[in-house]
């Protein structure tokens, strides 16, 4: 049913439809509306789950780990500092192969303290062993929860997943969202079947330690599972498209890339603005297009190389920066197209909620054409 909902509430409804049995989260701006909505659903018996009102994000994810290991489908949500506080648990959840789904309402990391959007928080956790997908709008943010639960719980994958959507830009924006019915989601997402679980009838030790004789092999196994997640994503996306008509089977998605000279690469809500800018530039005869990366982990290198094969240059819009280097997305895109002769220019953009307009995208296209890149875009030189 099509409804006009705040992004956070749309995500909360999606989570409800996934029937998590344990929800554990800690409030933090701009994620709070999601967990408030879930808490009130539990209070109103609209969601049959245990809601653990924890004392920190660290305990939120720790208790999710315990609940998942004991055999429940679990959910959490956080952002920014909260995600940073979970850092240690994030690695642990992935290493213990618990298929937890967690929403990230992307927000900048301090200092300086800033509650607005960029993607530094989740990007900083890129090596933790979590799948990461980025939503362009609230429909996608909603749908990706159904898909990631399926992929995460697939016994060929068994990895946790972050569904990332931009703080405020999406979390606090009301827009139409088509919400599936419970019957439809029950048909798409089967009940959780744990792999190794805590059960007195069948005792197992989970989370043992591994000596140098075993550790590397375990990390290799996680890496392989992450690679298998690519097919699982594509497969679940195709089935979802068959059932609901919205297609997320591509780990990347091209927009007007045919015959494009300059391709933008972006993740998340910025893609919408870029698409509008591209339409205007195309009307002016400029050959520009967009490659949207939906899953940053697993990273779709081959898909990116293929999608960008015809372009002369790539302008990556990074809402993050690996300080002392470049933006993380640009570095990985460079790796993906290495040897192709395509120029990859990086633009650090929109940190801490700095607004991006269509005219900015046009300016960046111009810079890329002149070969000017690998820089911050939109710095206020007057305050430096």
């Amino acid at each position, binding site marked *: 049913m099509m409804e006009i909902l705040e992004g956070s509430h749309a995500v909360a409804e999606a989570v409800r439809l996934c029937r998590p049995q344990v929800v554990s989260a800690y409030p933090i701006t701009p994620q709070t509306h999601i967990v408030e909505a879930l808490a009130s659903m539990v209070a109103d018996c609209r969601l049959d789950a245990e809601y653990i009102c924890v004392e920190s994000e660290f305990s939120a994810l720790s208790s999710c780990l315990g609940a998942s290991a004991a055999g429940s489908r679990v959910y959490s949500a956080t952002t920014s500092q909260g995600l940073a506080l979970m850092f240690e648990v994030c690695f642990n959840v992935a290493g213990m192969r618990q298929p937890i789904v967690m929403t990230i309402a992307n927000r900048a990391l301090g200092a300086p303290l800033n509650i607005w959007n960029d993607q530094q928080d989740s990007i900083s956790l890129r090596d933790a062993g979590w799948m990461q997908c980025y939503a362009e709008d609230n429909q996608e943010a909603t749908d990706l929860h159904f898909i990631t639960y399926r992929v995460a719980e697939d016994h060929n994958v*068994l990895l946790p997943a972050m569904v990332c959507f931009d703080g405020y830009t999406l979390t606090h924006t009301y827009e139409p969202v088509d919400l599936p019915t419970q019957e439809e989601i029950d048909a798409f997402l089967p009940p959780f079947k744990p792999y190794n679980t805590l059960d007195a009838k069948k005792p197992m*030790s989970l989370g043992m330690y591994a000596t140098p004789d075993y550790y590397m092999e375990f990390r290799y196994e996680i890496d392989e599972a992450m690679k298998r997640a690519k097919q699982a994503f594509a497969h679940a996306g195709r089935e979802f498209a068959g059932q609901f008509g919205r297609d997320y089977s591509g780990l990347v998605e091209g927009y007007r890339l045919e015959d494009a000279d300059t391709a933008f690469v972006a993740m998340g809500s910025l893609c919408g603005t870029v698409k509008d800018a591209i339409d205007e530039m195309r009307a002016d005869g400029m050959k520009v297009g967009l490659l949207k990366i939906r899953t940053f982990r697993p990273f779709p290198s081959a898909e990116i190389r293929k999608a960008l094969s015809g372009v002369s240059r790539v302008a990556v819009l990074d809402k993050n920066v690996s300080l002392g280097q470049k933006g993380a997305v640009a570095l990985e895109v460079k790796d993906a197209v290495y040897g192709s002769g395509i120029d990859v220019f990086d633009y650090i953009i929109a940190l801490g909620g700095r607004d991006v307009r269509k005219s900015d995208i046009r300016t960046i296209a111009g810079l890329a054409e002149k070969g000017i890149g690998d820089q911050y875009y939109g710095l206020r030189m007057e305050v430096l």
Partner: protein
Amino acid sequence: MALNVGCAAAPGRARDNRTGSWRVFKPTFRHETCTKCGLCETVCPEGCVKEREDGYFDPDYDYCKGCGLCAEECPADDIEMAQEEK
């Protein structure tokens, strides 16, 4: 899969590690003054002291580390520690 997903394992394999090889001093349960009180079984950190059918106790030398706690605690002074001959 050869490796168990998530570094998990079923019980039983700890016994693969025969800690008896650590032993320097070996306890001998003499069964002379023994009152079959079972304290040796209770206090063994290895859990390797077992009751026999006749009610006396014996250590499992595959696992006994030779700490001597049983000998020290034995109220009947019936357990003797002596350097292991290897």
